[in-house]
């Protein structure tokens, strides 16, 4: 997997590159936004690691220009300014993930893998949560090797949940997104659908977690549920 590291601090870039290469990544390093734009034009990358505090063109400017050109290479921002407001602004501007400096290399590796997997899946129209997969083109769910047969309502709700990994959806949010499909639904109906989905997923390491007051969350139980 090929990464582009955009970082102006030579020491950090040097050590980070060594660590990432040691973990099996190919890393190109450039120290400013112009260099990064040249690299992106010349080569294709699986992921961009971007430092925010760059000379000349700031990371935020680079991000804006990249997104304006319609480039959808996943982008992970590294910054020492980790205030909440900034995090929110970055994600809104199109960054895919965010890491505050300093960070643990293990965590960086996990996030890089997750982002690349997600972007490859999204490119093919495939969403996955553990063994559960949703193929957008075929409009069908598979659990392992088997096709999961679902009612239209169950299908619609599970699709919403799998398309938003790690982000819980409240009953109202589900209703709002389903209203074009189903006009006579109420919150109780959602509860019934969730109950039925749980039954269908009972033997898989997949669960729909209820977070009271927040919403439903689709989760892969990695310890083997």
């Amino acid at each position, binding site marked *: 997997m090929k990464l582009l590291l955009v970082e102006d601090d030579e020491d950090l870039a040097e050590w980070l590159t060594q660590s990432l290469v040691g973990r099996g990544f190919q890393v190109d390093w450039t120290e400013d936004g112009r260099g990064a734009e040249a690299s992106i034009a010349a080569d294709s990358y699986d992921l961009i690691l971007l430092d925010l505090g760059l000379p000349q063109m700031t990371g935020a400017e680079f991000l804006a220009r990249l997104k304006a050109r319609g480039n959808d290479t996943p982008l992970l921002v590294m910054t020492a300014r980790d205030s909440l407001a900034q995090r929110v602004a970055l994600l809104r501007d199109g960054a895919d993930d965010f890491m505050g400096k300093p960070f643990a290399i293990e965590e960086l590796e996990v996030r890089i893998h997750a982002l690349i997997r997600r972007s490859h899946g999204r490119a093919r129209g495939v969403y996955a949560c553990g063994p559960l997969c949703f193929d957008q083109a075929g409009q069908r769910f598979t659990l392992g090797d088997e096709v999961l047969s679902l009612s239209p309502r169950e299908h619609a709700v599970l699709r919403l949940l799998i398309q938003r990994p790690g982000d819980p959806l409240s009953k109202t949010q589900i209703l709002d997104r389903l209203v074009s499909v189903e006009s006579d639904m109420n919150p109780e109906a959602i509860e019934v659908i969730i109950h039925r989905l749980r039954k269908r997923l009972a033997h898989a390491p997949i669960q729909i977690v209820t977070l009271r*007051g927040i919403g439903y969350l689709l989760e892969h139980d990695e310890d083997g549920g």
Partner: protein
Amino acid sequence: MSARPNPLQGRPLWRTLALWMVPTLLFTMVMGLILSMQSLREVADSAYDRSLRGAIRAIDLRISTESGGLGVELPYPLFESFQATADGEILFRVSTDDGLVQIGDSLLPPPPPLTTGQVVFYDALYYDRPIRVAAYMRPLDPPLYGAEGQNLIIEIAETTESREAFLRTVITRTVLRDLAALASATLLLAVGVHAGLRPLRALRDRLDRRASDDLRQLDPSGLPREVQPLVQSVNRLVDRHRIQGEAQRRFIEDASHQLKTPLAVLRAQIDRGLQLQDPADLHAVLRAMREITDRSSRLTSQLLALALARNSALWSSAAAEPVDVATLLDGVVRLHLAEARKRRILLEVEADAHTGSLHTTEALLFEAVSNLLQNAITASPPGGTVTLTAARGVDDMAISIRDGGPGLSQDLLRRLGSGQRFNLSGNGVRNPSSTGLGLNIVQEIARALGGRLDLSNRPEGGLDAVLHLPAEPSGLKAA
């Protein structure tokens, strides 16, 4: 050369007042003068006219028709004294209304239509000189030459130079007196303003003499009442600077201590590592160093958050706005969800749209709740539950975060309760990875937002952290 006035210069107060006052005074003076000229002229006319009327009476008494013709014995002594006082020329004409007989100055202009028995006064010109004429008509009895209903007209005139001169004198005096009053009013104004501003100059001198670090309040007593609000404003500003300065000084002291400690530890670890030969030992030192680095980076973030919290609380009361509490809790929970789910911790929120909103600084409240939730997740055992509750009281809002962890030691609870700062160095802190700053930050923010943080161990285990915040905006508190 630029004619533009220096904006720093400002216009003197007395001149501003004079610009308001002098035109008004001038206007009333001119109006008064016009009115008094009118009445003066009337008064002068009536006085002078009385002499003319007396002269007519005197002439009238000396008219005889006994000779068959018209005879007038002119009262020369009267004319003389008259002329002397009036300081002018006396003219007269005695005639009949049919114009047959004329005695005296026949070139006097003809009188207006007259009524018998009445003296009429009017102004006229005689050889281009202004004159005042009194005319009187009475039936001539017996008439001359047997004529029927013949009337006698007596006209007496004087040149008006003297009464004009009199008027001029009086008016000149009035104008001079008024101008003198105006000048003295302006002078008094300037002097009064100067005297009135003396306390301000004294205040300026007091301020100039102050040492640059003297941030005591100014004493407004003895100053004009109009200036006291200004002094109070300045006092408030000075107070803010003092509080900010003190907070900053304390913060820098605390922070430099906090940041240097892990650096010292790292240095010691490196020194130790350089002495070691065995790769296994070296590896252990490196792992320990990694932990210290993690801790100091969390510490730096939290110190920055603390600094921001204080700064924004002190300086941006304008940032306060209605914040929907349910939305805010939802946002905080989503931020920490991934971390909580890694350890299968359930997060719950007990708040709905009816919880309502708080008038507060959103970023600070977010930071506070975020810190409390972070603590609760860290303290909670795997698979535990952390519950966030928002409950509206009469005039406050209670945001509570409950976890199922070990709670806090009595010692730490007591120290946090007494407002002790930066209770660090590991003892009593629930988790070895905690910097212990989190609760300090939340306390700081709660105070800045005009509320407080209550911490208590729950009987069934775990910590209950409750943020009490006023529903209405309150004044800023010193951090």
